[in-house]
């Protein structure tokens, strides 16, 4: 088999879900389409349990070149998959040559399972596939945040580093949940009255009560918000509020409101839809959807903070450079 044929055959296998399964994936049918009766947990909930991945090639927002195009054709999709396979992630794509090889560690996205998706953007509403423009208040907040960041150097201390680097919160964790660059895996566990969603990075569990209780009091703010769930037919609907203003999902305020919908559309597929609204940030709500497909478990513990040698190395590196600059300046005198 030629070097090219291998990946293509593999692709056919990987995307077989989409090509062969009678149940449509994201964007190919309205989410309300119900197909058969999903299996149930012992306490009667539709069963969403398992290990899932939300890895995808489709970007959140539609690229400008694809304006007006909601879907790729099957041929275009095949082309995209082929190009992705031919172009392994490189250190340069990580922004530096000083980087480990992704493929050696199994972290090239091509090495992991991902759902096929003909959508050109995950955003389905507004129809242009773009996040709505910021409101004046949203722009002001963004400017203030940028200003606050400038008050200290990016390497002054741990607080000036990104949340992911600090092992506090990965941007993809949300909610809404968007794929991480790798280890984009999600475990769903159900018990009577609860659904728990564990994200591999950073071992965070969202525990969603289904008993209709109100949200926690306004003074309680949470990085990942306060989720409340209910079943609408076979769809799990999760309503999340009480965010901190530090989570900052694409410029959001602490009044971010996220509504997620999980529908098991096939044995190995969950359609994940989410709507975000935050009138203090965007003039209108917006909506996206993407499939999650079953993948291999178990999920190994992603203890991030505990082994975060990188943080100390980065700060130490910055101090070493400052000292070198200081000594060079002295030598000049």
């Amino acid at each position: 088999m030629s070097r090219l044929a291998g990946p293509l055959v593999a692709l056919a296998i990987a995307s077989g879900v989409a090509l062969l399964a009678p149940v449509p994936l994201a964007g190919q049918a309205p989410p309300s389409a119900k197909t058969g009766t999903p299996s149930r947990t012992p306490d009667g909930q539709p069963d969403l349990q398992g290990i899932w991945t939300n890895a995808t090639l489709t970007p959140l927002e539609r690229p400008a070149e694809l304006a007006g195009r909601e879907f790729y054709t099957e041929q275009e999709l095949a082309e995209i998959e082929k190009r992705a396979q031919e172009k392994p992630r490189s250190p340069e794509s990580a922004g530096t040559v000083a980087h480990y090889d992704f493929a050696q560690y199994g972290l090239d996205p091509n090495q992991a399972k991902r759902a096929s998706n003909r959508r050109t953007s995950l955003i389905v509403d507004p129809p242009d596939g773009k996040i709505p423009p910021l409101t004046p208040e949203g722009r002001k907040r963004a400017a203030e945040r940028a200003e606050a960041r400038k008050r200290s150097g990016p390497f002054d201390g741990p607080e000036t580093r990104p949340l992911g680097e600090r092992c506090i919160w990965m941007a993809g964790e949300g909610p809404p949940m968007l794929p991480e660059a790798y280890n984009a895996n999600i475990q769903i566990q159900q018990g009577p009255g609860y659904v728990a969603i564990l994200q591999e990075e950073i071992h965070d569990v969202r525990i969603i009560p289904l008993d209709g209780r109100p949200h926690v009091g306004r003074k309680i703010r949470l990085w990942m918000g306060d989720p409340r769930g209910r079943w609408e037919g076979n769809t799990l609907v999760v309503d999340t509020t009480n965010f901190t203003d530090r989570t900052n999902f694409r410029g959001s305020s602490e009044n971010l409101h996220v509504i997620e919908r999980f529908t098991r559309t096939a044995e190995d597929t969950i359609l994940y839809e989410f709507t975000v609204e935050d009138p203090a940030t965007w003039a209108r709500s917006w909506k996206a959807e993407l499939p999650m497909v079953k993948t291999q478990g178990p999920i190994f513990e992603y203890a991030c903070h505990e082994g975060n040698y990188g943080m100390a190395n980065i700060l130490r590196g910055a101090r070493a450079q400052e000292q070198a600059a200081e000594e060079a300046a002295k030598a000049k005198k």
Partner: protein
Amino acid sequence: MIATVALVALSLPVRPAAGQDAARRTADGKPDLNGIWQALNTANWDIQDHSAGPGPVAALGATGAVPPGQGVVEGDEIPYLPAAAKKKQENFANRFTADPEIKCYLPGVPRATYLPQPFQVIQGAKSILIAYQYAGAVRTIPLEDPGPSPAPSWMGWSVGHWEGNTLVVDVTGLNDQTWFDRAGNFHSDALHVVERYTPSSPDILMYEATIEDPKVFTRPWKISMPLYRRVEKNAQLLEFKCVEFSEEVIYGHLRKKASK
């Protein structure tokens, strides 16, 4: 009132009365461990008997002091090997700086169980998930053997099975970085913990853990305690993402110094 109940319960034998089926049942007929639970003791300060003592920060006065408590170790004796006994003494001397809890590290097993914060059991038919409020720690306990652990981890590699009313969890694959308490009781990466969760009433889970580590102890030993259901109608885990509370301790010395 709750505290009184706790003290009484501590002095009781940890097994439910013979023949008594105190467990709620899940729809598939298993003992129902679902719920939010919390230990009500001072084991996180010291799993052995201890008197009250001053805390590490004088400025905190009485609020920072160590509360007294009766131990949770059977016979109150931890059978350390001689070298390990010495190491424990060192740990104790350095406890206010060396305890991994100070750095917001994942707590390991069994310590996660008796940290002074709640945890929640989400029980499925094939696996049981335990989420702990502290540091967002979590364990998945499959009821089918997942095979050996690929590498050591903080919360270990668990497999569970039912013995009557008891969930028995076998935990291996734990690293050597966690302590049992703030008093410096410790273990190696050869640690093997067998936990037993037994409902003794709808709102009490009896917890036992047998601890085996031939690199550190001369024989297996056991801890036990009741765990109480958080019965508040609005009980739920909140976030205790403590990384940011530990950054000064861990990275403070690497901060940029204020320019002169």
